């Protein structure tokens, strides 16, 4: 089956020239241009990682940008700028959860979601709500895999877990999502 969610970079990355312009001047206006180009995606990622808690997401984005600008001259353009930035965001998020046992908060894996669980009836708000209610670690794996298009090996590297653990968390996350969406759509109450 053809992959549907991997996000390969095709064509020039528009953020790259903005990065170059900012590095040449370190000017506020150049940064604001870069910020406006890259933050809508970063914000969506941060808000979902934070389980919909806007205050936490704002702190994540602020710290992410601070760290990104600190090391911006090391951005080589091997990956899309959004992916590079997303990696820094995940690191910020991991640090914020280091003391909260986010690694051990998983639901046990059970039956997999039925193939092709149709998401169509669920509204976006239902999806966001179901996503926000996932355990932190499962939510991160699901986002990195299904939205960011990362492999389990990449996720494992990013989150400091085994690739097999990433896979089992994805399995559990999808199952929990399907259960919650089914309940929301057609379940009792």
């Amino acid at each position, binding site marked *: 089956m053809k992959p549907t969610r991997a996000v390969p970079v095709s064509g020039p990355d528009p953020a790259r020239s903005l990065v170059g312009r900012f590095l040449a001047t370190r000017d506020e206006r150049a940064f604001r241009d870069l910020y406006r180009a890259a933050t809508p*995606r970063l914000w969506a990622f941060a808000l979902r990682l934070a389980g919909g808690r806007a205050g936490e997401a704002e702190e994540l*984005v602020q*710290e992410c940008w601070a760290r990104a600008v600190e090391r911006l001259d090391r951005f080589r353009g091997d990956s899309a700028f959004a992916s590079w930035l997303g990696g820094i965001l995940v690191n910020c998020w991991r640090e914020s959860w280091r003391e909260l046992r986010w690694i051990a908060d998983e639901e046990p894996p059970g039956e997999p979601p039925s193939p092709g669980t149709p998401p169509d009836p669920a509204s976006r708000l239902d999806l966001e709500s179901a996503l926000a209610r996932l355990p932190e670690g499962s939510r991160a794996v699901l986002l990195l895999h299904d939205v960011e298009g990362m492999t389990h090996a990449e996720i494992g590297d990013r989150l400091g877990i085994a690739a097999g653990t990433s896979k089992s968390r*994805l399995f559990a996350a*999808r199952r929990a999502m399907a259960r919650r969406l089914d309940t929301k759509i057609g379940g009792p109450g």
Partner: protein
Amino acid sequence: MSDLDDERGAPSPLDLLPRELPPPPALEARVVARLAARGLLTRRRAARWLAPLAAALAGLAGGWLLRSGGGRLAETAAPAAPAAGALYLLLIEGEPAETRPVAEMVATYKAWGSELAARGQLAGAEKLKDEGIVLAAGPGGPASPLEVGPATLGGYFLVRAGSLAEAEAIARDCPHSRLGGRVTVRPVDPV
């Protein structure tokens, strides 16, 4: 099927979610402030053409104008009775085409403002700060941080005039318009 990435071909409910969401409007300013605090970027200085206006207003406030109530009202040290006529707002916008030394501009603004005040025609004046929020409906979201640039509103004068034509004449004599800047004149609706 034992490959670790065998799920990537399966549909995900998250496929329906937008990849991008509009960030909170105030977040940009907070990010910029954090970067500036860590010395990671050079903050843009206030528009240079506004400096004389700010200095002149400060001078006017200390010498000719007195604060009264919640605003900076125009009252001369030897108070002039408010002139007859209606109120007109003079919006100081855009960068002037010509520049002059700051000290010269401060003196020019002071002289112009003091003369208005002495005639009882200056009812208020303020320079605006650089930061702010623009609220406007649009596909990009309801609000965005204010972008300071050539078209930015920099300050205002509230003057009394007998007619729109007289208000226009006052605006034409304003140092900002004499140097090629934009001044919008709007009558205050007394409703």
